């Protein structure tokens, strides 16, 4: 931000301004001519901080959104520990771990894309996105096979639900409701993410995102990492609880 801003004289030193949360900026007239800067922002700085704060608040709401279903999990888990452990044993831990690995790699490639965007490296934004899409796709593919295996074993809750493991009562069905609810919601987030990345490829290739303005890429990166974090919790919660007993 420029120190020649007319506001500086009016409201003290830049440091104070920062503390008070005031956005000091170039005048309106200058601002309108900057590419990629929306008319209602005074500076790139203000625009960037706004979009990150907005994105983070969006993630906060995502935390609470997943929180509702996690809450159900926590409650039923504390009530029906053994049924949950038994039900969890039916899941394939290896596949779960594999998928975790795949997703972590996708998070990494997302960072690569964001990093490239910061440096204005057009090629690597695209590669990063492509790799992330690839890993995300693998994850969903594996998930598809997992789901169809459940379907074949009649582990999908509903009238066809059948349980052949240890007799631990109906709560196993609740486990599978939660399993499908949680992983389904997670997968839905990934599908949306992959869709957005596919859309991003074109502008990325055309060099829309520059070192000055790549908020979209960075913001999307946050979303993708968040989806990864959800899985980081889902993996032990769903796959690992019954292993030892």
């Amino acid at each position, binding site marked *: 931000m420029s120190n020649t801003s007319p506001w500086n004289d009016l409201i003290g030193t830049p440091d104070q301004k920062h503390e008070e949360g005031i956005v000091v900026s170039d005048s309106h007239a200058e601002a309108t001519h900057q590419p990629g800067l929306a008319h209602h922002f005074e500076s790139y700085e203000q625009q960037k901080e706004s979009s990150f704060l907005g994105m983070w608040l969006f993630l906060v709401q995502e935390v609470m959104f997943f929180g509702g279903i996690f809450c159900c999990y926590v409650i039923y888990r504390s009530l*029906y*520990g*053994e*049924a949950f452990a038994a039900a969890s044993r039916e899941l394939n831990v290896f596949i779960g771990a594999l998928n975790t690995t795949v997703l972590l790699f996708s998070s990494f490639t997302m960072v690569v894309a964001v990093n490239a965007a910061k440096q204005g490296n057009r090629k690597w934004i695209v590669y990063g996105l492509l790799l992330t899409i690839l890993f995300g796709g693998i994850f969903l593919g594996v998930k598809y096979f997992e789901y169809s295996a459940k379907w074949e074993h009649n582990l999908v809750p509903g009238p066809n639900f059948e349980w052949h493991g*240890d*007799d*631990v*009562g*109906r*709560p196993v069905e609740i486990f599978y409701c939660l399993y499908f609810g949680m992983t389904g919601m997670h997968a839905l987030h990934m599908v949306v993410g992959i869709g957005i990345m596919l859309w991003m490829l074109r502008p990325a290739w055309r060099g829309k995102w520059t070192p000055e303005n790549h908020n979209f890429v960075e913001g999307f990166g946050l979303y993708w990492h968040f989806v990864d974090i959800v899985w980081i919790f889902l993996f032990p919660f769903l796959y690992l609880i019954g292993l030892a007993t």
Partner: protein
Amino acid sequence: MRPEFSLFPEQASTIASKVDALYFFALGISAFFSLLIALVIFAFFIKFRRRRAGEVGAKTHESMALEIVWSVIPLIICMVLFVWGAIVFIDMRTMPDDATEYYATAKQWMWKFQHPEGQREINSLHIPVGEPIMLTMTSEDVIHSFFVPAFRVKQDVVPGRYTTVWFEADKVGTYHLFCTEYCGSHHAQMRGSVTVMEPDDYQAWLAGGGPVAAPQELGEALFTQHICNTCHFEDGTGRGPSLVGIFGSEVRGTDGSVRVVDDNYLRESILRPSAHVNEGYSQIMPTYQGQLSEVSLLQLIAYIKSISDSPSEESPAPAAVAANGE
């Protein structure tokens, strides 16, 4: 039932006057503050009205002392309300040791009651005056709520578990019974009455219906019918633990957790035996989910409770706090 208009509900239980006292206290506080604020506003409104255009108000900014005063006073009042409310509430939730247990099953849209002596009623309940009554309730479908305004008691009736409510009527008469949890089309028709009778009248009423089997007797029959007795021997030598004396005791599960045996525990053990397997036993008891109606289940439990009562001729003592609602 009093069809005539009144502004205040009848008091017909021992708890009613306690609730009303608390209510009047809270009402007094509310009236005081509402009037105070209304009056002060009105006075200021008149006194400080604008007298000429361009005038501004005095620059009174803030006063720490005032802020403290008007946060602390409400806080204290609130705490008094809370403590008093809590005392009344704990009273409502603590079953007296000598309460007689009645059973209620709610379904869309009726109330089914069963007396300890076995009489059954629909949408009406007859009880003796001056005797603490405890109702163990469950629902066959959706959530309902048992409400007798004259007794000032209310308790939701939840499918899949037992909830309890107790009251001691102290005035003879017939009172409204309402379902107060919205439960579908005829929620408003899910009404009934509670008739409080002199003990003698009550006995006469009981006798009037002819001989009936008590719930625990019906339960005993069910116990054989559903082959429970092939595993649960009285002396504990069967494949399952002896059920004699278990009600109110603490049991340890194979996972080390300890549960108190109450109505809900028994229910769980019968419907989902595997949810909590007893230490020293293996999981072989079949699930009875779907095979027992709510009413039979209540009778089975009544039976198990009856063999848990100490052999001495004491009155039935369902462990007070353990069965306390939910």
